[in-house]
């Protein structure tokens, strides 16, 4: 925590000193024109499936950096965002300039279906290769997918450190975890579905794990808030496939919650941002995207928004840099690309859900 506060302070002072700096030195020469055009536009409309609370430090800093460009931030859930983008495009009226969502697959579907503007951010070189697709969809955060548990009720040696240990533990002690295991209801939660399908893709022993989970009569929820609440209260003992950034925020408030990054593999999710092809404020949108990807924006993402920085040159615990030190090659970022379309396939989705329910869902 101490180091984080220190980073915060550093960041504040840094933001003061560069508050009126214009185009960063390593940006193309004509970037000043983009800034001027953005000022003309005066605003950027953002549709996001990310809490306003997490976004507000970014918005404040952005508006300070580019005075005259206002951020209009609309927070909505992932399916709402997806449907709005499509229906507003069909209607032809005003819509968002930038779309930012944790539902990686739906975002990729939108990019694949031609909703995104091709724009090569000057920050591209600083991003990992897996995080950029077509210079349209950009991964912006670095959010490990974790186990959480109740610190009081689960003895340290009982806490599984990997997916394999989780499966072993559940198989060995079905009674101990009966009704005490929680995760996403993949039928209701898009993110839950995305994560479990990535597990299925990555983990060859996935269906054994699913069988072990099913034997423990798990409780599936549609939101991570409920899961964390139940674990905090002790009603559930262990949750898996929890988005690390949420868990960290929760753990800060509730010291009874423990977090484990699985040692065999830790999925890493990244919120995908793209600029609308038909953006009315496309220059402001470019400024916003570049700002989010910049070292300055990423420092705030890591240390104030608690979403995790995707840049290797941003210091902190919750950054690609910090996590790589702890987990090394066990980190498995979900690739930003057309592979994400696989489980959006209607037939595939129904087939998978059916199989999951047969194997892992609650049996009375």
């Amino acid at each position: 925590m101490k180091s984080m506060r220190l980073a915060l302070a550093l960041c504040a002072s840094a933001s003061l000193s560069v508050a009126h700096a214009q185009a960063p030195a390593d940006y193309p020469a004509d970037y000043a024109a983009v800034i001027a055009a953005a000022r003309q536009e005066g605003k950027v409309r953002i549709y996001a499936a990310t809490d306003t609370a997490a976004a507000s430090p970014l918005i404040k800093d952005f508006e300070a950096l580019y005075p005259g460009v206002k951020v209009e931030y609309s927070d909505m859930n992932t399916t709402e965002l997806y449907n709005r983008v499509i229906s507003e495009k069909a209607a032809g009226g005003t819509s968002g300039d930038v779309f930012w969502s944790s539902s990686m697959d739906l975002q990729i579907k939108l990019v694949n279906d031609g909703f995104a503007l091709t724009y090569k951010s000057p920050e591209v070189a600083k991003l990992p290769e897996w995080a950029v697709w077509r210079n349209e969809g950009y991964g912006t955060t670095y959010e490990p997918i974790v186990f959480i548990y109740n610190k009081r009720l689960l003895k340290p040696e009982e806490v599984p450190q990997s997916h394999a240990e989780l499966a072993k533990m559940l198989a060995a002690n079905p009674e101990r975890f009966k009704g005490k295991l929680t995760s996403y209801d993949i039928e209701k939660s898009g993110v839950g579905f995305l994560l479990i399908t990535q597990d299925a893709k990555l983990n060859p022993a996935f269906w054994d794990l699913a069988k072990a989970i099913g034997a423990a009569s798990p409780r599936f929820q549609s939101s991570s808030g409920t899961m964390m609440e139940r674990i905090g209260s002790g009603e559930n003992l262990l949750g898996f496939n929890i988005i690390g950034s949420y868990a960290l925020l929760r753990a800060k408030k509730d010291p009874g919650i423990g977090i484990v990054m699985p040692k065999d593999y830790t999925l890493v999710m990244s919120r995908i941002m793209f600029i609308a092809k038909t953006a009315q404020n496309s220059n402001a949108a470019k400024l916003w995207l570049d700002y989010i990807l910049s070292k300055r924006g990423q420092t705030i993402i890591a240390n104030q928004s608690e979403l995790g920085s995707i840049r290797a040159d941003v210091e902190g615990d919750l950054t690609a840099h910090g996590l790589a030190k702890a987990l090394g090659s066990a980190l498995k970022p979900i690739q930003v690309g057309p592979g994400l379309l696989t489980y959006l396939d209607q037939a595939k989705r129904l087939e998978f859900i059916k199989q999951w329910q047969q194997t892992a869902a609650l049996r009375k």
Partner: protein
Amino acid sequence: MRSSLRRRVAVWLLPPLVLLLGVNAVLSYRGALEAANQAYDRSLWASIKSIGESSFVRNGVVVVDMPHSALEIFAEGGQERVFYAVIGPDGALLTGYPDMPVPPVVPADGVVKTMDATYKGDAVRTGAMRKRLYDPAGKGDDSILVLVAETTETRTELARNLFFDSLRRQLALIALGAVLVLVALGTAFRPLLRLRDTIRNRSEEDLTPVASEDVPSEIRPLIDAINHHMGRLSAMLDARKRFLADAAHQLRTPLTVLGTQAEYGLRQDDPAEMRRTLKGIVRSIGSARRLTNQMLSLSRAEAVNGLIRERSRLDFADLVREVALELSQLALRRQIDLAYEGLRGGLMVEGNDAMLREMVANLIDNAIRYTPAGGQVTVIVARESAEAVTVIRDSGPGIAPDERGKVFQRFYRSLDQSETEGSGLGLAIVREICLAHAGRVSLDAGPAGRGLAVTVRLPLVKAL
């Protein structure tokens, strides 16, 4: 000379090369596109295959279990957008994108067919495959259609890169080729230039053959032709020199005679003697004039030799008759019976009218002159196959066979006829004119071995 040859080679070589380059560019762009397609169609192919392999029938229902690799394969090489669809045996969309472009012909089973198309306004490369499911419950056609398409940005970029690479190489090759051609031209023309220099530096009098040993074989015919021409030139020049010397010599004789006659006349007091002397002088002047006239005629005929300028179509029979008529006065004076036998017109030849008259006049003149009074001269004109023939026959002394070759030489006069005046040029003129008209002239004895018969043959104009 140097630059113009270069220009000529450039004009002949460069536009076709540019044209070739253009053709080649089109071909190589197509080739590049094909190569790019071949490379990238592999992932399309693999994707379609994997979807096909994951499709099956369960309880009478077609199940498509999208394999992860089917779409992820596109993430590896490129940054293309991907569309796919699986269409059931009944034509209904089982899963994927609606209204995908389908190749017109998709083979029955397991073969992937690819084509270029557009989908939702974007250029795409589409692959299609039909897969049979062998559903035991299905009746007959139970094949599904698997479609996968990707946008073509990477392909066109690769093709463009390949194309520009090859274009750069071709341009470099052509530039190198042009340099080589220039160098080759330089060396190839060097012997020619050397030859030019040696000919240019020759003295004006030098008509000896040009050395043809160290010239390229292509130029040797040219050198040989030049040498041949020079040989003719020097022979002609020699002939001219001799003619000039002979002519001067010949002119000296009448001048000497004139001088003597005039001196003799001066010394006379008797008017009758002076008058006789003057008569002699007038005769001498007459023969000198004839000599000069004949020399002029000969030189004109020689100049004409081979290149008569004013040629026209004329009737040779009429021409001969007219000339004979003109000379009938002379014949009368000499008491010679001049007869004309043969055609009245209708012998068309092509030639110079004045020259031919000169020729015939000389022959008839000889016949009249060398035939003693009371003799006979017959002029015959006839057609013999494709030739106009005229024979001038007289009853005179004739020419001995061994002399017949010599009388055509200039200034040659037979000693037997030394009492008859003449310059010795008449037959030479006849021969030159005859040659210039592609004709032949021959001397024979007259009928019964007496007198002379001169035969001239000229080619007739071909009947139209």
